[in-house]
């Protein structure tokens, strides 16, 4: 693949994000993208940050957090810590119509993050092979 391909794939990924209702994530990732070193690096940065966003709610990430809490923190009833939640403040409650969000480990998100990481590795491999053969673009 050449620079135009990487550029086109990034534009495609961004369009997919917007169509999936994930414009906020797309914009946040793009605002983190700076000092562009070229279309390949922009694309792989975007995918890496996307994988990080996905993995935050994954079973692996949340299990790791809960494991740390349970290992180092007791509770009054001596029962294990059950989870992590966000209490929505009174003013936000009217806006979002929700009182509390419980973060529960989501295996699907862990799998999606892993798929993205594998894709990034493959893209890097292909880019290295292409650079070795043609001396890069």
């Amino acid at each position, binding site marked *: *693949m050449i620079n135009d*391909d990487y550029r086109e*794939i990034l534009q*495609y*990924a961004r369009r*997919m994000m917007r169509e*999936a*209702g*994930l414009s*906020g*994530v797309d914009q*946040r990732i793009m*605002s983190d*993208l*700076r000092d562009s070193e070229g279309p390949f690096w922009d694309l792989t940065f975007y*995918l890496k940050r*996307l994988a*990080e*966003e*996905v*993995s*935050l*709610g994954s079973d692996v*990430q*949340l299990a790791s*957090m809960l494991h*740390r*809490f349970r290992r*180092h*923190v*007791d*509770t*009054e009833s001596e*029962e*294990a*810590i*059950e*989870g*992590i*939640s*966000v*209490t*929505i*403040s009174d003013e*936000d409650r009217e806006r*979002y119509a*929700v009182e509390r*969000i*419980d*973060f529960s480990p*989501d295996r*699907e*998100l862990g*799998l*999606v993050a892993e*798929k*993205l990481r594998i*894709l990034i590795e*493959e*893209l890097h491999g292909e880019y290295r092979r292409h650079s070795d053969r043609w001396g890069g673009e």
Partner: protein
Amino acid sequence: MNKQAVKERIESAIRRFASAPSSEAYKLVPQSLTSGKLYEAHVLSIVVERLSTQENFQISLVNSLFISLKSSPGPVNRSYPHFQLRRDGRLVAELWTDVEFKSISYDLRGAQVPITRGDYHELDLVLTDPGVDGRPKHSQVWLGVECKNTGYTKGLLKEILGIRRELSLLHSPRATQFSQWPRAQVPAEPPSCLMVFSTDPIVTHYSSPGDVFGIDFEHEPI
């Protein structure tokens, strides 16, 4: 690997991300809120671990079996879940999330005047003297932590320098409440510790003012 195959794999991943059960629940609030809070929880778990293993605090969660974060900052509400920290069985400090502290400038004005919006500032994690109710005074703060799941910018550096200014005055090194973590001494009076955790590796490029004023910057990836 060809362009079309890459597009299909990305599209599949994005569709699965958007339709995951937890994503549906999270869609009730902005994604920036959920990912920011998840990162805050991640950092909180690391802070708790270090306070336990490096400072030998005995740590208890009270008022809930859930680690609880808040969508907006506010004063300490003692009925909210929080952590109690003990040394040799004696309660010495409490760890709160999303709490505003009263600034040093408010204190210097006499602290009897009505408090205004500019007189208090938010910290994502705050370790304070025990028993605080409402907004803790700057002098009651042992440790403040900011968590940034975003690109680190000059604006964020200016923000944390402002927080440092409103917590303490620059001073020759003073002993903190800690033996080693986050630090045993800080060039500040009162000697509170202040930390920034960020997903952005660039955060360490902004650390030089922190060397002078006593702010620790740490790159903590997800």
